[in-house]
């Protein structure tokens, strides 16, 4: 058991536990906070996998910007503990079952794939995630999607402003 394996198992357990907490908390602020913990765990996984750039971007963009946005909206809604209105336990049950079913399917198909068992993940080694290497590919091969994504952001900004405008 070397250290990477131990870290892998620890991070996986943390991610799973936090995800379950996200889904089950009543208070939406708690859900947001647990989701931030999930993002941290996943960033840890990225580091294990030599994707340093992505790990940092994950923290900054997701945990830093998107979750903060969520918190803003939640606090604006002033939603402390929603009033309990007609909870349909049957629907919840069904939802969990569906999720479980999907999980079973995915896992079983992945297990039955023959050549999957031959491949391994090599941890820790390699330069694959270095910013330099990523940047080389990004600005040569994927230059067009890069530019188009800027247009996407523009339209998202405009859309958000238009939708969020108060009717006067």
């Amino acid at each position, binding site marked *: 058991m070397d250290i990477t394996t131990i870290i892998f198992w620890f991070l996986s357990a943390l991610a799973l536990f936090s995800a379950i907490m996200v889904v089950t908390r009543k208070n939406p602020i708690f859900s947001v906070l647990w989701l931030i913990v999930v993002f941290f765990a996943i960033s840890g996984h990225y580091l294990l996998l030599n994707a340093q750039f992505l790990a940092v971007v994950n923290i900054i963009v997701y945990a830093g910007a998107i979750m903060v946005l969520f918190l803003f909206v939640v606090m604006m809604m002033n939603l402390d503990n929603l009033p309990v209105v007609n909870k349909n336990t049957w629907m919840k049950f069904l939802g969990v079952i*569906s999720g479980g079913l999907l999980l079973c*399917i995915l896992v079983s198909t992945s297990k039955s794939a023959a050549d999957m068992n031959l491949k391994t993940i090599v941890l820790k080694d390699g330069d694959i995630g270095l910013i330099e290497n990523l940047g080389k590919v990004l600005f040569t091969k994927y230059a067009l999607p890069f530019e188009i994504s800027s247009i996407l952001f523009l339209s998202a900004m405009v859309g958000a402003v238009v939708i969020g405008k108060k009717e006067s």
Partner: protein
Amino acid sequence: MNALVLCIPLLPFLGFLIVGLCRNKLSKTMSGILASGVIGISFILTLVIFFSHSYSPNAITYFNFISNSQYNIPFAFQVDQLSTLFMLIITGVGFLIHVYSTAYMSEETPEHYARYFSYLNLFVFSMLLLVLGANYVIMFIGWEGVGICSYLLIGFWFKNNQYNYAARKAFIMNRIGDVGFLLAIFWLLARLGSADYSIVFSNASTLSVTDVTGITILLFVGAIGKSAQIPLYTWLPDAMAGPTPVSALIHAATMVTAGIYMIARSNVLFSMSPVTMDIVAVIGLATAILAASIALFQNDIKKVLAYSTVSQLGFMFVALGVGAYTTGVFHVMTHSFFKALLFLGAGSVIHAMGGEQDITKMGGLRKKIPITYWTFLIAVLAISGFPFTSGFVSKDEILMAAYAHSQPLFWLTTFAAVLTALYMFRVFMLVFLGGFRGSEEQQHHLHESPPAMTIPLIILAVLAAIGGFVQLPEIFGGHDYFNEFLAPVVPAFKHVGESMAVQEYYLLGGTVVGLLIIFLLCKKWYAVKHFEGKYTGIKNVLAHKWYIDELYDAIIVNPFNNIAGFLKSIVEKSGIDGIVNGVGRFIQYSSRQVRLVQSGMVGNYILIMVLSITVLFMVFWNQDLIIGFLQKIF
């Protein structure tokens, strides 16, 4: 010769088509001339065949009607003595009746006039097909054809619902008999593989006793329906709802004699089955007596004649039942003469009375319509058996054959003959003698009929008077030409020699005395000024036809109607309609339920999406397993 024979039924058929299809455009004269003309030409062609003596037992085949690996039923005609004789009767009497009808139906509108003549032509065509057919199937086609024409013509004045019921009743009773006929044909086909006369009659000896008895009984059932014997006779009196010439042609001269023809044709089969012959004779006798008893107390002139027809048909079946086939056919011929004459005469009387048919309102018409009077008198004498008329010769033959068969049969048949004379003279006296019992305006309306009606009457009267001379017994100086003529096809009755002459003289004497007594009695009772026609006690029962119609209604008609009503209301309405409507209602209901899936709740939609994706994954990634599983099931 083959083409000639084909023309005989073909011409009336063409007449039917042309007059029927162009009925809106032809004038009355044109329709009458066309229709009568084709029958006249057929009659001439029949005469040609008759005088050329070219008969053969072989059939003339035109084409294959039904032909498969098991059966071969050709459309073939058989021109032998029996069919030629019947053809003469049909076309001859038919022609006279057509001519008569041109004057009798002259008050109709041109379309209905043409429709009448087209139906009459179709009838003659079907009847010719019946007698010309060389196998039972072609006979059956003609059989059905005359049934249909009978229905069409009885219900000719279709605006009157009573007439429609009468037509329906006739057709249904015919149909009941037809079932028997069909079963007999099927039985023959099953046993002998063919329905051709030549094959059936030559192989008849190979049939077992049960086969022959069964087949002949079933054939006789068909004859019961068509020729109005007990128990299927009640349609004939009701059939008087049709025009009088129709009654003359169909219900006196031709259609009702189809049963006689069938049995005469199948004499080989019937002779092999004594059981059936006894049944035929008994039923014929019973019908003769029953119908004669009812005719004694009827007040409608046509009803009397209708029951008289039923009774005379009974006589013919008695003749057939004792084995005197030629006698039966001979009585057909003479009966067609005098009965058609009676009906046409009655038509003339009705025409003179302006439509009145009740004899209690007639009387003393002798001076006003003389030609009708004299021809009617000849017919009455013929049917009563006045010496040397045609009716005398044929009836005596029947009585002699009955005497040779069994004494009780003879005496009962004689009793029926006495009743015949009684009711005929009653009608004669009530209509033509005595004082007029009708209203004033009817009296002013009385006039003789136009020549188109009286000339056929005269011709038929002549035939009725002298028609017997073709078969006059030898003691009176005649020779049985008729029996000789039919001998190759239909056997005659074999009398035991000596006592014949004595019997003949007894019969002659008995007839003269009896007729004299009856004439005087009837003159006393019925040649009167006042006659109400109301009866009490047993006479009332007879006047109400022994209540047999009511009996049939209670036993058969009403239960059928109830069953039909039950089926209509419960099976049809609740059952079948329920199913059909139920399909519609089910679809409506299920669509309402399915609509609820669109709840608008996004959560539900996502749930269903996830479940579907799960199922899709399962199916796609385990395709082989699923296909193998499905193949094992199917």
